[in-house]
């Protein structure tokens, strides 16, 4: 139980990263590859947040009725990093999907084996 309570978030983050890489490496459909990139993105964000967690800590927000001391708060720097990374990830995903739409217009298929030179 103590192992589980220490490492369950790391297990989730690494599992998500590995599954995302699996989808990116093995699937041939372009849109499914982009879904794999989305999964990988979420896994990396989850890992970054879980490195900043303090056991028994609370969110780094002071509020009037709640007397929290700064030494009992989680690290705010990874949260500020991930906050912008999520928004950037969404817009880059939209850019990738527009490239996929143009590939479909040009070749008539989404299968990366049939698009020349795009797959190993």
């Amino acid at each position, binding site marked *: 139980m103590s192992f589980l309570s220490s490492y369950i978030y790391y297990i*989730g983050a690494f599992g998500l990263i590995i599954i995302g890489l699996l*989808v990116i490496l093995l699937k041939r459909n372009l849109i*499914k590859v982009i879904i794999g990139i989305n*999964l990988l993105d979420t896994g990396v964000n989850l890992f970054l947040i879980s490195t900043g*967690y303090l056991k028994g800590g609370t*969110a780094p927000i002071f509020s009037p009725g709640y007397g929290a001391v700064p030494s009992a708060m989680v690290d705010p720097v990874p949260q500020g990093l991930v906050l912008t990374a999520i*928004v950037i990830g969404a817009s880059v995903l939209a850019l990738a999907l527009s490239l*996929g*739409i143009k590939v479909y217009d040009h070749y008539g298929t*989404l299968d990366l084996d049939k698009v020349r030179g795009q797959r190993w």
Partner: protein
Amino acid sequence: MIIIATVTVFFMLGAALSVFFFKDLMNAVVASSLVSLTATVLFYLLQAPDVAMAEAAIGVALVTGIFVVAIRRTERYEK
């Protein structure tokens, strides 16, 4: 707290694995929406409400909508 974190990680990994096996891309999009949903709960349990809010607004509504628009423009079934 550890009960609900364990169950949520289990759901998240199950939904992510099911993305690999679905042939219909709509089902894959629904599963990736579920991954975002559970990631929100994990961010919330890790005491990061700002990040949970961003993931909730973007992962569930906007990314799903953008994927659906792209699938409508191309083709729905793999193979």
